C-alpha cells in the first residue's frame, strides 16, 4: 500500500509529467485544476454557513438567551430565549435514545451473533429500507398512529418516538459493523472456558466493541438532534416552558429556529441565529466527541 502511493506520487512529481506533451498534458492539467476547483466549491458553503452562524449567532447569544423562554415575547420584541427549546430537545433526544439504543443493540446482536443467513439478510434489508424513510414521513407516521389513531395529543414523547424511528436503523448498522470487528478468537476462547453464549456476548463481545458502539450512538444522536420536520407534526411547538415530555406540546431547538426564521422581523431572525448557534454547538460537540472516541478505539487501530 505504501509502495503504491509512493510510486503514484513519483509519477506526478514533475519530471515524468513534463515529458508528456501537447493535448494530453493540457488535459491532465485541466483535470487537476477541475478537481481543485470542485474541492474549493464544496468548501465555500461550509465556510459560509459556519461563519455566518457563528457571527450572527454570537451577537445575540448570551446567558440570558439560555435561561429564558419565549413566554409572552412577540416577534418585534428583542428579548426572549431558548431555555424551553433546549429543555425540550434534551428530553426528546434522551427519550428517543432510551428507546432506539437498546432496541438497536439487540437487533445488531441478533444480526451478528444469532440470526441465520437468510433471516439476517431480510432484517438487514428492512433496516436499510428504514434508513431511507424521510424524516417528515416518520413524523407523519407517529402523528397518524399516536395522535389520530390513539387520540393522544401532541407531546415531547410523540416527537421522541418519531426520532427513535429515525435513530434505530443508524444504531443497528453502526453497532453491527462494530460487533463484526470483534475477533472470533475472543468468542472461541470464552466458549472453550465453558462460558455460555449469552454471557460471552454480554461480558466479552459487547465491552470489546463498546467504544465503537458509543461512537455510532453519538453520531445517531447528533443526527436526530437537528431534525425539525418530524417535530412539527408531533411536538408541535410551544412558547412556554413545558418540562413534562409526556403531556402537552413542547418546543425544541430546531422548531424554535424554524418558527423564528419564518418571521420577517429582524429581532426574530436574530433569535433564530442564536438558536442555530446553540444547536450547532451541541451537534459539533457530539461529533467531535465521537471522533475523539474513534481515535481511542482499540478495534479501529488494527
Amino acid at each position, binding site marked *: 500500500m505504501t509502495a503504491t502511493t509512493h*510510486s503514484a506520487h513519483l509519477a506526478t512529481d514533475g519530471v515524468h509529467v513534463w515529458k508528456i506533451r501537447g493535448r494530453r498534458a493540457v488535459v491532465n492539467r485541466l483535470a487537476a485544476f477541475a478537481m481543485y476547483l470542485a474541492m474549493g466549491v464544496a468548501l465555500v458553503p461550509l465556510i459560509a454557513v459556519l461563519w455566518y452562524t457563528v457571527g450572527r449567532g454570537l451577537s445575540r447569544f448570551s446567558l440570558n438567551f439560555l435561561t429564558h423562554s419565549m413566554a409572552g415575547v412577540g416577534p418585534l420584541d428583542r428579548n426572549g430565549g431558548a431555555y424551553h427549546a433546549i429543555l425540550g430537545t434534551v428530553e426528546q433526544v434522551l427519550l428517543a435514545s432510551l428507546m432506539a439504543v437498546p432496541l438497536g443493540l439487540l437487533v445488531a446482536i441478533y444480526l451478528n451473533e444469532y440470526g441465520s443467513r437468510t433471516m439476517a439478510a431480510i432484517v438487514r434489508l428492512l433496516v436499510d429500507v428504514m434508513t*431511507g424513510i424521510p424524516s417528515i414521513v416518520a413524523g*407523519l407516521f407517529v402523528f397518524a398512529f399516536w395522535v389520530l389513531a390513539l387520540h393522544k395529543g401532541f407531546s415531547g414523547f410523540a416527537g421522541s418516538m418519531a426520532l427513535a424511528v429515525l435513530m434505530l436503523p443508524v444504531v443497528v448498522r453502526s453497532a453491527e459493523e462494530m460487533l463484526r470487528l470483534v475477533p472470533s478468537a475472543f468468542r472461541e476462547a470464552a466458549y472453550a472456558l465453558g462460558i455460555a453464549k449469552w454471557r460471552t456476548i454480554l461480558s466479552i463481545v459487547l465491552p470489546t466493541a463498546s467504544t465503537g458502539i458509543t461512537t455510532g450512538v453519538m453520531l445517531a444522536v447528533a443526527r436526530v438532534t437537528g431534525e425539525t*420536520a418530524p417535530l412539527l407534526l408531533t411536538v408541535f411547538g410551544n412558547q412556554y416552558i413545558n418540562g413534562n415530555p409526556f403531556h402537552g406540546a413542547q418546543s425544541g431547538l430546531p422548531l424554535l429556529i424554524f418558527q423564528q426564521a419564518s418571521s420577517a422581523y429582524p429581532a426574530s431572525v436574530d433569535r433564530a441565529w442564536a438558536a442555530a448557534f446553540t444547536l450547532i454547538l451541541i451537534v459539533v460537540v457530539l*461529533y467531535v466527541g465521537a471522533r475523539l472516541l474513534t481515535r481511542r478505539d482499540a478495534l479501529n487501530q488494527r
Partner: protein
Amino acid sequence: MAAPGSVLASRRVRRFESFRAITAAAALITLVLLLAVAIFLVVKAIPALRADTASFLTAKGWQPDSTPPVFGVAALAFGTLLSSALALAMAVPVAVGVAVFIVEYAPKRIASWLGYAVDLLAAVPSVVFGLWGVVFLIPRMTGFQHWLATRFGWFPLFADPDGQTATASRSIFVAAVVLAIMVLPIVAAISREVLRQVDPALKEAALALGATQWEMVRMAVLAPSRAGIAGGVMLGLGRALGETIAVALVLGTSFAINWHVLTPGGNTIAANIANYFAEAGPTGRSALIASGLVLFAMTLFVNTVARTVIYRGAVRRGGDR
C-alpha cells in the same frame, strides 16, 4: 453451538435460548415497526382520498379543507422531482470531484482533514441551511438568477416569460442550490469510499503504461467505480426528495406545474406538509398523510434501486479478483 455438556448444560441452554429469543424479538419489533409505518399511513390517508372530488394523482391544487375538498399531488410531486433533479445536476459533478481530489490529488495529511470538513457539512442540521438560505442566499441570488434568465432565457428551463426574476428569487432554482449543498456530502462520502477500494494494481498498471495522472484516474479509478458512485447518487436523491425544512423556508409556495425554474414559486411534497400542517383541518391532515405516502413510495423506490446498484457493484468488484 450449545453450551458444553455438563450438569449445568440444561440451565445454560435455557438462558442461552431466552437471550436469543430477546434479540429475535427485537428484530421482529423492527419489522413490525416498518409495517406499522406503511399501514398507519395508508389507513389514515383513506378518509381524505375518499373525500377528494379531484383525481389525487393528477390534480394540481391543494384545497382539502374546502367543501367539497379538491386536491391533488401532481404539482407537489413535480416540484419534488424537478428540484431534486436540479440539485443532483449541481451537486454530483462537484461531489465526485471532491472525492477524486481527496483520494487521488490531495496530500495524505490534508486529505483526512478535508474528509472531516465535508462530513461536517453533513452534520449541519437542515433547518440551519434553511435559515442560511433565507437570510444569506436569497438576497444574493436575485441578481444571478436575473442574469441567467436574460442571458440564457433561450434555454426553456431558464425562461422568464413574465419578467419576475428581476425582483423575486424564491424559486425552485434557489431551493435546488440549498438541496445541492445538503446532498453534496452524502454523494462525496460514498464516492470517496468507493474510490478508495479501487485495486492499487490497476492504478500502477495505468501509470506503467504511460498514462497521465488524469488518464489513470479516468480509466483505472473512475471507470471501475461507476456502479458505486451511481448508488451514492441515488442515496443523495433519496435525501433530496425527502428534505423538508430547508425547502419549506426557502421556497415561495405555489401549486402549478411550472418548468421555469428561475421564476418564483413551486412546492414540494415535504415542504407542503411542513407549511400546511398547522392550519390544516381533519381532511387536510389526512390529505397531507396521503401525500406523505406518495413521498414514501418515491423514496422507497429510489433507495431500493440505490442498494441494488451498490450491492451489484460490490459483487462485481469482488468477482474480478
